[in-house]
């Protein structure tokens, strides 16, 4: 990207290209956070309205009231920024930014499609979970620094809840990592390409169970109803953000909605095929798609760096394939968020002891059963959802972890070289040697 910008500007390896490239990536992710929150808040109001047999917002911005959030935003900007007397002023002011920064940072490693990612992180799953875990930090800071008992109660509840739910959440995330043999989200998504039976949620009954437990724990982890004890308005006024007003208050909500989206997007990558649709339309029609393309292929790059002008160097087909991939992931993430809203307006809020019981007595054992069951399923080589459809592409992706025959290793090697972001061929070759050999050892061969 940086090279491309420099190419357009006819500069030679200039810092301007890097800055422009970084800005484009950062602003794009910021739009996912901000516009996403805008859309989701409107959706929440509409959905809650419909569930409660109301209309929801109808006036601002035409028939469906779709500009309601924007109007609210303008109102919030105009509000006075109040800081309580008893507050720890510095922490009080900085707390909302911490939460927003945490959920924004988690987007860095989230691949929207193969090749559309802020920064390729080899252990992306781990990174996203680690960064998302920091969001609770802002809640605790806000609760403590407000100098209000309601806020402190809310923050303490949130802390206890989030720390507990990280345990089953981590156990659920391990299952796709174990099946795919990688923590790279792009690879996990690519291994589910093809028909929807390849999705890990349909891999075996245990992954199905794990997906459900993951979604429950993720809902609790991002502090959504029925687990929204930190802001239980019937008991704690508004919980940790009781003392906040105006834009700072709205930053909490931006963080909440963007982390809702990110756990939903993570669910869709880990269990529901990521950027790959339920039916590989492009493949059926014989078009070029990200499914059948390695990233070392020159065609993989949307922009041909050494090409002539802008349009001459643009690979339209790849751009469309990527666009569809991103649309797929955004759609899946939005569906996940919609389910969370549906749950919120359908179930009553749990008590704090019920929340803990839910976690320790149900989610943890279920996650453990799912993990052990999925491991056993893999070890015993039982039929998976993939073998129902007998999709050839899945076996293609599976090769480098499954088969240890000589030709398979070779094929896997050629597959490996195509791994994204290996610009150093020597390192790539070394990585291949390292990677293909031990996998056969692990699997015991003959699979």
């Amino acid at each position, binding site marked *: 990207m940086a090279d491309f910008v420099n190419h357009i500007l006819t500069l030679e390896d200039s810092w301007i290209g890097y800055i422009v490239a970084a800005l484009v990536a950062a602003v794009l992710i910021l739009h996912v956070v901000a516009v996403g929150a805008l859309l989701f808040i409107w959706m929440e109001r509409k959905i809650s309205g419909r569930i409660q047999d109301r209309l929801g917002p109808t006036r601002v911005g035409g028939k469906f009231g779709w500009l309601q959030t924007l109007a609210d935003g303008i109102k919030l900007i105009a509000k006075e920024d109040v800081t309580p007397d008893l507050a720890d002023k510095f*922490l009080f002011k900085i707390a909302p930014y911490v939460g927003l920064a945490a959920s924004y940072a988690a987007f860095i490693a989230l691949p929207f499609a193969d090749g559309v990612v802020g920064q390729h992180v080899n252990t992306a799953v781990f990174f996203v979970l*680690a960064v998302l875990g*920091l969001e609770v930090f802002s809640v605790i800071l806000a609760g*403590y620094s407000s100098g209000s008992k309601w806020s402190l109660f809310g923050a*303490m509840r949130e802390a206890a809840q989030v720390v507990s739910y990280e345990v089953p959440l981590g156990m659920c995330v391990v299952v796709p990592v174990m099946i795919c043999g990688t923590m790279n989200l792009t690879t996990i998504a690519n291994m589910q390409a093809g028909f929807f039976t390849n999705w890990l949620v349909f891999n075996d009954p245990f992954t199905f169970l794990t997906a459900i437990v993951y979604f429950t724990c993720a809902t609790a982890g991002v502090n959504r109803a029925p687990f929204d004890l930190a802001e239980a308005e019937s008991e704690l006024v508004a919980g940790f953000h009781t003392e906040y007003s105006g834009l700072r208050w709205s930053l909490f909500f931006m963080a909440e909605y963007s982390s809702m989206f990110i756990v939903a997007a993570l669910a869709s990558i880990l269990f529901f095929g990521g950027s790959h649709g339920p039916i590989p339309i492009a493949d059926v029609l014989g078009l070029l798609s990200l499914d059948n393309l390695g990233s070392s292929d020159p065609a993989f790059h949307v922009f041909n760096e050494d090409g002539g002008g802008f349009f001459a160097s643009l690979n339209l087909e790849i751009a469309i394939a990527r666009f569809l991939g991103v649309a797929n992931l955004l759609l899946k993430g939005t569906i996940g968020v919609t389910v969370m809203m549906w749950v919120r307006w359908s179930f009553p809020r749990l008590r704090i002891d019920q929340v803990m019981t839910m976690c320790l007595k149900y989610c943890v054992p279920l996650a453990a059963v799912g993990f052990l069951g999925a491991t056993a399923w893999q070890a015993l080589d039982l039929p998976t959802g993939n073998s129902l459809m007998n999709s050839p592409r899945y076996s293609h992706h599976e090769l480098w972890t499954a088969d240890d025959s000589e030709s398979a290793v070779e094929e896997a090697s050629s597959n490996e070289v195509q791994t994204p972001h290996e610009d150093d061929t020597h*390192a790539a070759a070394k990585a291949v040697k*390292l990677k293909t050999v031990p996998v056969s050892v*692990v699997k015991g061969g003959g699979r």
Partner: protein
Amino acid sequence: MDLFAVAWPYWHQFFFIIFAATAVGFGFGVLLSKNVVRMAFYLVLSLGSTAGLFFLAGAEFVGAMQLMIYVGGTLVLLIFGVMLTAQKDFINMDTHTQDWILATIVGGSLLMVLLFAAFGAEDWNTPQDLTDAKVEATKEATPLGLALTGIRVDTLGETDDAVQGGKAGYLMPFIIVSVHLLVVLIGAAYMARTKKLSHATNDKSSRAKLMLFKMEHEAELLEEETYVVTHRGQSALNPLDPQDDEN
């Protein structure tokens, strides 16, 4: 200084300076702050910047680990700091002069050891040809994970027996740490278990406790009920039974 002698823009250096400065700066913040919660907050920022340094060095797994374990751990520390000390008497920590002196001596001598070690390494003094320096990292966590399960992929090709011995990887330390953690977990669960109530008396607090116990163990008690009724005074599970004096 060699550090700044590099032609702008050298991004790696640029971000290194930013992350290093924040790490050190917030480290001083921890030292100089008197408020427990602010200290923990600065500590989190300092450790987070260290994670940034790891990411910069291409050690993504270690960086994520740093975030998960150190930053997450400090978070729990913060939670307990708030929970236990969110009162006026405890929230500010006054350090005595003698503590300052002692801490300076200990910390200063440790810092000296570190500095000697850091500047003692010859290769570190003058980085060779910085402009072409590239982070040579495979960015692969798989070999690391395999090494933890007992397969050292980097020594697989070795024919030398002495090196082959290292193929067992880090399975043993991994298992030891896991068992250790398991013991800690079981111990914590044991210490936090519901204590059996004994010596039920007529005062109100004991009755309240008994009520609580009954509410918590309703199902068990229902099962036990017939047994208790028929063998009153013999059941060990009956919380009313004064014979069972364990606690």
